[in-house]
């Protein structure tokens, strides 16, 4: 009964979304606040209905109602409660409901937003409703999670064990908040293209409205992608964290577009310029989100980690992509020539630097897209099956990004309208010197000597010191009395702190990525208990292996000791090889020994026989120097995004209410 309620709520949400679109369009045409208000109500009711459906789905998973085919296919009574619940969004159907929930939920927030002009808001609500109709119809008609099984099985098939992991329980919701958050930017861009006025005060305001959405989506995407990378790092046991796999690129492309959007929206807000470009990026970012969903779900590009794959239903996503983005870009092509932003600008200025940032970000996004889609294009064209591997991305994406990062610290130091390049150079001289010093130190400290990796360390340091130089400049650190600096620090807007954190966090990430990639040491050997393996300065001894029983798996649990090569500083680590009888799958639980910024990463492999014929286990050890920074950096970046979001200047409704109070 409750399950039927969920199915009903989902259909109701579809009807409400259709109603939302219709009412909003009628309200816009007749300029009727009553109809528009009804559309807002439909948007909120739709979100409530999807939330109800999602709650019912979670309930069905929590109580293991195997009469629901989705539950039977993805759950099991032995599964821990956390993974029963996360199983609700672990499959194609469930994750689509989550997608719809975020879509309608943000639509409801948009409906409640204050301070937007009537026409813009109503058009955006209509667009958001139309997106809701497409995705809800897709869910209800092709991927309904509430389909019953008759007779109901006694036991379910369980969730893929690799997905039974805390990081992966929260990874999809965060990622979807980012992906689908971009739908609001999309709707606001479509609305602006419909309403777009030549008057110059409209566009700066529009830039201000779109920014919080872009910022929030970007912060969620950053966190979601990082969690995914971290999961791949410790759960797959391959020693790496990014493989340039199509599925990874699928989430990375919207991130790059959202990053570009974030920066160009600032120019639109402050200078009323780049109007068409910002609108284009807003359309592009959500288009890439849908493309990402297609890549992940269709299974068309060969990926090492694709879940919830179903080619036929993937094609429906391609159709949604064609309709939604096709219509939006057609609208763009029609209206863009009529858009008139303000804006004259000099090449050497803050806006000039932001344009350069956008050019680099979109160019690198394009190279990632080419590398991801080229195998598909070639296969369609002449049937050859190819794969584009990490070397391609190292040769294309990395140089473009390096160029972008080299100019990054100069951007925030340049003034709007007319920057002073010489002054910026003087203010960054110290940072540049420190960065070069760091590169030299890095070159001396790490073995083997690698010039490129040392230069990469310099680049990371340049980002961090360059960003700090900008804050120091603003606070007049060491040049004014300390009390003055403190006073300035307090009055510095949160948005400025957010920018600083995001840029410095990027530098932290670069340091981690460069050092880990350049200097990681890998070793493998078949070890009998008591034997050792060495990797760089570390030695790992296999102490014992025993069989342990988990809630829904059996595991060979290896107890190992990590020490320095001279035997000092021992730490115990546990690495497991788990066998899940349901589904018959084996997974790896990596043993991670956190050593300051470094990881000693231990994988217990298959049981074999060693040279003497005794039972032994293949033990694989990685020494990943500075690996901690790879995940710390993006966390700092996301925190920067959060700080910027809290900036009062970005919150239109709040400041207005404050003024009346």
């Amino acid at each position, binding site marked *: 009964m409750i399950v039927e309620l969920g199915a009903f709520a989902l259909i109701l949400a579809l009807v409400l979304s259709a109603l939302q679109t219709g009412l909003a369009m009628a309200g816009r045409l007749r300029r009727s606040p009553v109809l528009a208000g009804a559309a807002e109500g439909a948007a909120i009711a739709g979100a409530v209905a999807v939330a109800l459906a999602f709650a019912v789905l979670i309930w069905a998973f929590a109580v293991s109602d195997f009469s629901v085919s989705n539950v039977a296919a993805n759950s099991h009574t032995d599964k821990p409660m956390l993974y029963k619940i996360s199983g609700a969004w672990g499959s194609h159907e469930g994750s689509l409901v989550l997608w719809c929930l975020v879509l309608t939920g943000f639509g409801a927030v948009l409906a409640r937003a204050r301070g937007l002009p009537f026409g813009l808001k109503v058009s955006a609500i209509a667009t958001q409703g139309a997106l809701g109709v497409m995705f809800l119809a897709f869910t209800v008609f092709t991927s309904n999670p509430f389909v019953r099984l008759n007779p109901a099985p006694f036991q379910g098939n369980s969730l*893929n064990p*690799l*997905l039974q992991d805390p990081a992966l329980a929260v990874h999809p919701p965060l990622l979807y908040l980012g992906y689908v958050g971009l739908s609001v930017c999309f709707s606001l861009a479509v609305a602006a293209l419909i309403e777009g006025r030549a008057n110059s005060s409209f566009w700066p305001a529009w830039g201000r409205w779109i920014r919080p959405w872009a910022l929030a989506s970007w912060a969620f995407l950053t966190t979601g992608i990082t969690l995914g990378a971290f999961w791949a790092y410790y759960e*797959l*046991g391959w020693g790496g964290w990014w493989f340039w796999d199509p599925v990874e690129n699928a989430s990375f492309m919207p991130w790059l577009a959202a990053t570009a959007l974030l920066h160009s929206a600032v120019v639109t807000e402050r200078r009323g310029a780049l109007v068409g470009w910002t609108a284009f990026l807003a359309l592009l970012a959500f288009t890439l989100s849908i493309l990402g969903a297609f890549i992940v779900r269709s*299974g*068309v590009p*060969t*990926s*090492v*980690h*694709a*879940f919830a*794959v179903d080619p036929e239903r993937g094609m429906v996503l391609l159709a949604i992509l064609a309709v939604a983005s096709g219509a939006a870009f057609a609208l763009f092509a029609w209206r863009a020539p009529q858009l008139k932003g303000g*804006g*004259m600008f000099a*090449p050497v200025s803050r806006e*000039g630097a932001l*344009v*350069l940032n956008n*050019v*680099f970000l979109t*160019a*690198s996004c*394009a*190279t990632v897209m080419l*590398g991801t889609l*080229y195998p598909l294009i070639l296969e369609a064209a002449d049937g*050859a*099956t*190819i*794969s*584009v*591997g990490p*070397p*391609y991305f190292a*040769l*294309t994406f990395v*140089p*473009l990004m390096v*160029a972008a990062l080299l100019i990054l610290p100069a951007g925030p130091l340049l003034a709007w309208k007319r920057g002073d390049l010489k002054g910026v150079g003087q203010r960054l001289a110290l940072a540049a010197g420190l960065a070069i010093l760091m590169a030299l130190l890095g070159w001396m400290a790490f073995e083997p000597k690698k010039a490129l990796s040392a230069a990469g360390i310099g680049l990371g340091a340049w980002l961090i010191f360059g960003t700090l130089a900008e804050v120091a400049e603003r606070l007049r650190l060491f040049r004014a009395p300390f009390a003055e600096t403190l006073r300035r620090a307090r009055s510095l807007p949160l948005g400025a702190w957010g920018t600083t954190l995001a840029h410095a966090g990027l530098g932290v990430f670069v340091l981690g990525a460069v050092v880990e990639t350049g200097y990681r040491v890998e070793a*493998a*050997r*078949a070890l009998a208990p008591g034997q050792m393996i060495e990797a760089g300065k570390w030695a790992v001894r296999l102490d014992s292996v025993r069989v342990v029983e988990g809630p829904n798996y059996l595991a060979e649990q290896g107890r190992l000791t990590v020490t320095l090569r001279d035997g000092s500083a021992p730490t115990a680590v546990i690495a497991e*090889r788990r066998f899940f009888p349901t*589904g*018959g*799958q*084996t*997974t*790896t639980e990596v043993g991670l020994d956190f050593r300051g910024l470094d990881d000693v990463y231990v*994988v217990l*492999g*298959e049981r*074999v*026989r*060693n*040279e003497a014929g005794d039972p032994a286990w*293949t033990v*694989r050890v990685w020494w990943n120097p500075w690996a901690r920074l790879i995940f710390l950096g993006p966390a700092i970046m996301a925190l920067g995004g959060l700080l910027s979001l809290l900036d009062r200047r970005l919150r239109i409704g709040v400041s207005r209410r404050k003024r009346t109070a």
Partner: protein
Amino acid sequence: MNWLPKSPKARRRLWVVAIVAPVLALAVGLSLYAMRDNVTFFFSPSETTDEDAPVGRVIRLGGLVEAGSVVHGANGEVAFAVTDNAATTRIVFHGDLPDLFREGQGVVTQGAFLPDRSFRATQVLAKHDENYMPREVADRLKSKGEWRPESDAPATGAATL
């Protein structure tokens, strides 16, 4: 700088082009250059002729892991055979096989041929899905009429029974 256009609008456009063009040229150039050398072609064992897959060129080789062919050597070296039921290639791999590697299942390996026409794999790819059948492998088997989706372990069902 009197060669600059007079109107501010045209001047801005010129600047934008001046910024965008080099970056675009760089991106296109890098992509073309990288595409030339870093694209890996996929083959099934019966397609790996000397001309198409010469010794030393990095390719992807995929097929079904032949039942009973997996031999674990000392020091983590694994040898196995991959077949498309028309031809079989012997593969040597040094390292840990993916958790989902099983006899009778589809597998994609990356590496290069040695002079003795055995294949040295540097990477063995497997997906996180227990129903995994690499799409390329499935396509090749279908085109050869060797695709038997009804059995769990295609083509080796008979061999193991």
